[in-house]
C-alpha cells in the first residue's frame, strides 16, 4: 500500500517536472525577455494624432537639439511603463510626463514606484520574464550584471552625441558610463561626495569664524575640542565631531587623500592593510583619544539632527535629509579636510547618480517613443538642474555649475569646486561595503586593535572582490599622476 502511494507520488513529481518544463521557462533557455511582451497594448480605436503644444523643447544638453515631432507611434495610443524607487524623483516624473503628454496626447505613462532594495528584487523577477517596464531607473552599483546581460539598451548616438558629452559632461571622458565597447548605457545627473557638516548655532556660540575653517585633520581635531561639551562626570554630552556609523567611508576617503587606491589594478583584491590605511585608522583614533567623540556615542545620523554633535561628516544627500527632517536646524558645510591641506592627490571618493534607461525587451516602435521621452528630458538644462538639486549632487553637465539655482545651493556649489579631485572607484559592491563596515567601522567602535582590524578587513574585502568580477575604474582618475606610483 505504502509502495503504491509512493509510486503515485513519484509519478506526480515526474509529471510536475514535465509541467515545469512546459509552463515555467526551462532551466537553460533563452529568457522570455527576448520575446515580445504580452499583448498588453489593446489598441482601442486609433485616436487621430492631435498635435499638442510644445513644452520644454529646444534643449541641446545631450549635444542634439530636441525638436518636437509631428507625431509619435503613428498617433496610436501607447502607454509606457516607467519604474523607479526614489520618492522625490517619482514625484518629479509625474510632473514631467504631464508636460510631455501635452505634446503627444496619444502617449500616456504608468509610473510604478517600488521602494529601495525591493526594486531590484522586482526587476530581477520581471525583466527576464518579459514583464518589465519600458523605462526604468538605474543605479550604477548594478553596472556589470545589467550590462553583461543586456538589460539596458545603449543610448542612441543620434540623440546623445558622445563627442559632445565627452567635452561638456563629467565622467564621459573617463568612460564611467560606458560598456566595454564604449557604448553609453546610462548618463549621470551628477556626482556626490562627502563634506563636513557644521551646526551653525554651536559654531557661533563657540566664537568661531571663517578664519577657523579647518583645512587639515589636525586643525579639525583642534576645532572639535572647542566644540565638545561634557557632563559633570566628564562624559561627552555633545560631541565635537561624531562619525560613528560612517567610519568605514571616512577611512576610505582618508586613504584616497594619501594617494592610495581602494582596489588593486586587476580589481581582484582590496588595498586596506597599507601604511596609508593604518595612518587613516590612527588619525581616526585620535578623535576618540582627544575625547571629541567616543565609541559608545550615538551614530552620526541620529546625533547631528538632534544637536548631539557639533560636526559630522556625510555625503551630500544628508543636506536633503536635514531639510526634510530637521528644517529648523541651521547648518553649513565645509570641504573635506586633508592630511596636507591641499586637494591633491585627492580629497576622497565620489559616486554618480544616474539616469533612466530603456529596456531592450520591448519592441522597436515602443522603444522609439521611450527614447524620444528620454531625449526630451535630458536635453533640457532646467530639467537637469532640477534633477541635480533633487539628488543633492553636482550637475554632471559642467555648464550648469554657473546656473543661478546651483550657485545658490551652498552644499552643491561648494562640492562643485572640488569634484575634480574625487576618485570614482567604479562598482562598489555591497559585499565590500559590508566588509568595511563590519571590520573597519564596527571594529573601530568596539575597540578592536588596529592589527586585528586591518587583517580582518583586508581578508573580508578580498573575499568579496574574488567572489565575482567587478567593474573597477579608479585608475581613470583625472589626477592619477598625483597618486602613489606603482600600486599593485
Amino acid at each position: 500500500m505504502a509502495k503504491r502511494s509512493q509510486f503515485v507520488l513519484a509519478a506526480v513529481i515526474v509529471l510536475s517536472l514535465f509541467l515545469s518544463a512546459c509552463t515555467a521557462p526551462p532551466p537553460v533557455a533563452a529568457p522570455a525577455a527576448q520575446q515580445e511582451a504580452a499583448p498588453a497594448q489593446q489598441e482601442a480605436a486609433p485616436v487621430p494624432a492631435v498635435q499638442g503644444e510644445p513644452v520644454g523643447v529646444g534643449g541641446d544638453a545631450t549635444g542634439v537639439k530636441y525638436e518636437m515631432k509631428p507625431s509619435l507611434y503613428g498617433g496610436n495610443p501607447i502607454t509606457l511603463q516607467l519604474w523607479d524607487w526614489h520618492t522625490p524623483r517619482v514625484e518629479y516624473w509625474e510632473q514631467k510626463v504631464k508636460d510631455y503628454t501635452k505634446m503627444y496626447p496619444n502617449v500616456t505613462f504608468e509610473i510604478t514606484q517600488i521602494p529601495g532594495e525591493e526594486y531590484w528584487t522586482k526587476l530581477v523577477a520581471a525583466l527576464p520574464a518579459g514583464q518589465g517596464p519600458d523605462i526604468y531607473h538605474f543605479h550604477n552599483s548594478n553596472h556589470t550584471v545589467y550590462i553583461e546581460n543586456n538589460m539596458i539598451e545603449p543610448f542612441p548616438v543620434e540623440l546623445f552625441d558622445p563627442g559632445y558629452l565627452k567635452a561638456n559632461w563629467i565622467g564621459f571622458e573617463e568612460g564611467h558610463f560606458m560598456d566595454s565597447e564604449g557604448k553609453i548605457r546610462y548618463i549621470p545627473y551628477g556626482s556626490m561626495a562627502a563634506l563636513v557638516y557644521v551646526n551653525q548655532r554651536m559654531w557661533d556660540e563657540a566664537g568661531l569664524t571663517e578664519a577657523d575653517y579647518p583645512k587639515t585633520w589636525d586643525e579639525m581635531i583642534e576645532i572639535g575640542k572647542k566644540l565638545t561639551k561634557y557632563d559633570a562626570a566628564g562624559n561627552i554630552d555633545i560631541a565635537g565631531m561624531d562619525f560613528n556609523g560612517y567610519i568605514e567611508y571616512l577611512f576610505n576617503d582618508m586613504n584616497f587623500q594619501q594617494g592610495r587606491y581602494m582596489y588593486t589594478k586587476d580589481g581582484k583584491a582590496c588595498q586596506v592593510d597599507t601604511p596609508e590605511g593604518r595612518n587613516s585608522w590612527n588619525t581616526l583614533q585620535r578623535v576618540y583619544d582627544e575625547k571629541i567623540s567616543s565609541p559608545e556615542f550615538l551614530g552620526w545620523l541620529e546625533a547631528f539632527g538632534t544637536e548631539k554633535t557639533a560636526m559630522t561628516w556625510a555625503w551630500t544627500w544628508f543636506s536633503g535629509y536635514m531639510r526634510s527632517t530637521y528644517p529648523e536646524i541651521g547648518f553649513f558645510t565645509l570641504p573635506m579636510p586633508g592630511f596636507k591641506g591641499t586637494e591633491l592627490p585627492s580629497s576622497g571618493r565620489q559616486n554618480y547618480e544616474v539616469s533612466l534607461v530603456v529596456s531592450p525587451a520591448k519592441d522597436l516602435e515602443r522603444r522609439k517613443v521611450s527614447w524620444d521621452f528620454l531625449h526630451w528630458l535630458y536635453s533640457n538644462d532646467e530639467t537637469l538642474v532640477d534633477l541635480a538639486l533633487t539628488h543633492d549632487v553636482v550637475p554632471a553637465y559642467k555648464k550648469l555649475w554657473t546656473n543661478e539655482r546651483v550657485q545658490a545651493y551652498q552644499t552643491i556649489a561648494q562640492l562643485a569646486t572640488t569634484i575634480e579631485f574625487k576618485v570614482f572607484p567604479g562598482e562598489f559592491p555591497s559585499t565590500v561595503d559590508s566588509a568595511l563596515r563590519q571590520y573597519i567601522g564596527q571594529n573601530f567602535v568596539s575597540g578592536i586593535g588596529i592589527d586585528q582590524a586591518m587583517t580582518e578587513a583586508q581578508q573580508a574585502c578580498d573575499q568579496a572582490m574574488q567572489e565575482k568580477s567587478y567593474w573597477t575604474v579608479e585608475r581613470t582618475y583625472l589626477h592619477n599622476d598625483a597618486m602613489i606610483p606603482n600600486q599593485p
Partner: protein
Amino acid sequence: MIATRRSPAQAGAKSQSNRIRLAGQRGMIALAVLPLAVFYLVWVGIPMIYTFIMSFYDWNPLSVTQTFVGAGNYLEALTRDPLFKRVLINTAYYTVVTVPIGLILALVVAVMVNSLPRFIGLFRAIYFLPVVTSVVATSIIWRWLYQSRFGLINQLIGMVLVDTLHLPINPSIPWLTSRTLAMPAVMAMSIWKGLGFTMVLFLAGLTSIPSVYYEAAKIDGAGVWQLFRHITIPLLQPTMIFVLATGIIGGMQVFAPMYVMTQGGPANMTKPFVYHLYEKAFTLYRFGYASSLAFILFAIIMFFVFLQFQVMKTRWEY
C-alpha cells in the same frame, strides 16, 4: 447537542451505516486532498523542483544562458564559503536559545493569564501587543534601549550597580556592537516580539482540555503540580509539538530581527543563514548558489524536525 440525536434504530443498522460512513470519508478525503494536491504541486512543488534543479547551475535569472556546474554549488558551500560555518553557528545559536525560552515563557504567561479571575481579555491583549507593534517602533525603541551612552538599559545599570552599589563596572555596555553581546541582544528582542504569538497558541490549546479531567483527578486527590504535570502538559502535547516544530522551522530561517537591528554585524556575528542566502541571491545574483544553500538548510531543518517528532512521540505517545 449530540445526546439528542441518539436513536436505537440508527445504531442497529451498523453495516449499512459503516458503508455510508466510508463513502462519506472518501468524499471528505477527496475534497480535502485533491485541491490541496493541485495547489501544492503548482504553487510549491514546481518551484521547489525548479529551484532544486537550478541549484546545480550557476543560475543568474538575468542571464540568457545558465551554466551547469554539477555539485559545484554544494561543494563551494561546504568547503570554500568563508561564512558558511559562521552563519550556520549563528542560526543554531539563535534557535537553541530562543525556541525553548520562548516556549517556556509563553506557556507560563498563558497559564498565568488564563488563571486570572478578571481582566483576562486585557492581559491577553497586552501580551499580544508586541506582535503587532510596527517594525519601525520596535527597532527605534530597542535600539534606544541598547544604546551605549544614552540607552535606558545602561542608564539603569549605571544608576543601580554603579551609583548605588558602587560596583566597579563600566556602564557603557556596547550591546549591539560587541561580538559577544550582539546576538543575545537580538535574541531578547526577538523573544519579546514573539511571546504573544506563542501565548495565543497555548491559550487555544489550554481551552481544548476538558475540565472533567481536572475534576476527576482532584477527586482522586491529585495535587496542583501533579495536575499540571500529568494533565496540562500531556494534553498540551499536540500544541507543544506544533510550537516546537514551527519554532525550529522559523528559528532556522530567522532573518528579520537581524536585518532590522544589526545588519548581521559586528564581524558577521549576528548574520543568520537566510540572510547570507538572501545576499547571495539578491545582491550578488548568485541564485544557483543561494538555491544550494537553501537545500542544505532544508535538509538540516528536516532532520531536526523529525528528530523532534520522534522524541516527543515516544515520550508522550502523541
